[in-house]
């Protein structure tokens, strides 16, 4: 019994990684996915920033959900999310200003990332605080993982390096760092995902 409970908690995290992967299965939050994955490290930073907001907003929304009238729940959630995004902006400006400068506009735009609002509406408002926190961690990790993978592929093709470690002299195929590469790499990764990992 105890064992099953543990595995249920564990599956809350693993579901977000593969079965409900926000990028490759649900295809949500595509804008930051495309825009910030010019290198592996940028993708990872964006994923972690989103995870921060996701966990906090999931916890807070699961706490207040019983008190919020049904009709105004979406605006309430948006305000909660926007508050945590503002908090994140201030923290990043204070402690990691250069990361904040690289990711730029896409940090405030976490407010309108459909993943965060989606989890609030689909999970946090009807589950316990602990479960919502785990769900936030799982989905956040899934998002971070996919952004890092896309970042790695684009960085290898586009600049001939991985996490800044260069293994090809000179430039890579520049198009992969620029806009077209983002669409094309995500497209082909989705194809691979459909082919090998998706349920038959």
């Amino acid at each position, binding site marked *: 019994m105890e064992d099953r409970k543990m595995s249920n908690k564990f599956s809350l995290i693993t579901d977000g990684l593969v079965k409900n992967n926000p990028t490759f299965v649900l295809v949500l939050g595509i804008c930051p996915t495309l825009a910030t994955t010019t290198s592996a490290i940028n993708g990872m930073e964006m994923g972690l920033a989103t995870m921060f907001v996701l966990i906090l907003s999931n916890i807070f929304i699961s706490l207040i959900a019983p008190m919020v009238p049904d009709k105004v729940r979406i605006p309430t959630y*948006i305000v909660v999310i*926007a508050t945590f*995004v503002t908090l994140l*902006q*201030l923290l990043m400006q204070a402690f990691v200003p250069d990361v904040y400068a690289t990711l730029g506009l896409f940090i*405030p*735009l976490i407010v309108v990332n459909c993943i965060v609002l989606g989890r609030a509406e689909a999970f946090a408002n009807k589950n316990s605080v602990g479960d919502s926190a785990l769900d936030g961690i799982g989905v956040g990790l899934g998002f971070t993982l996919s952004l890092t993978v896309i970042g790695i592929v684009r960085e290898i093709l586009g600049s001939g390096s991985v996490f800044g470690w260069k293994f090809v002299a000179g430039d890579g195929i520049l198009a992969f760092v620029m*806009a*077209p590469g983002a669409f094309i790499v995500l497209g082909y990764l989705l194809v691979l995902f459909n082919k090998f990992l998706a349920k038959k």
Partner: protein
Amino acid sequence: MEYLLIIVSAIFVNNILLAQFLGVCPFLGVSSKLSTATGMSGAVCFVITLATVVTYLLNKYLLIPLGLTFLQTISFILVIASLVQMVEIVLKKVSPGLYQALGIFLPLITTNCAVLGVALTVVTKEFTFGGEAHMLNLGEATVYAFATALGYGLAMILFAGIREHLALSDVPKAFKGLPVALITAGIMAMAFLGFSGIV
């Protein structure tokens, strides 16, 4: 002349969808039919321009004088959400025809990152249109927002045209749906890269 530069740059060179990746979710979501794509573009055009003007004024006359610019994100999203709601109510009353055409797309626009994205860009970024770097004034900001929205519409309608053809062609199973749409968008983005350097 400067306005012309803003327009060309916003529509073609820095196309909001294909170069800046703002508003890609609805771009992929509603672009499978030409008619819905046109409706969505119209609604986005309307809301982006209106929202940018309102948030610009809010920022200039309320947030900056009071030293509250750190509240930009939270206040802008509230303004956009209420604006969308208001536009919906006004349209329903004043022009039922237009409401019929745009109505179902309006609620979706609140979470379209293009709207918040343009509103935030206009008040935080310095632009260099044929001169030195400066913050946009109200006129420039309005033109920039409208032109950006036109660029959004252009990319969206072109893409919907292509996708209508894609639906009829024989695509390998793993490519069906989104993957092939993304790869098509990538090729379109490559075509739009051809415009870089003209401004």
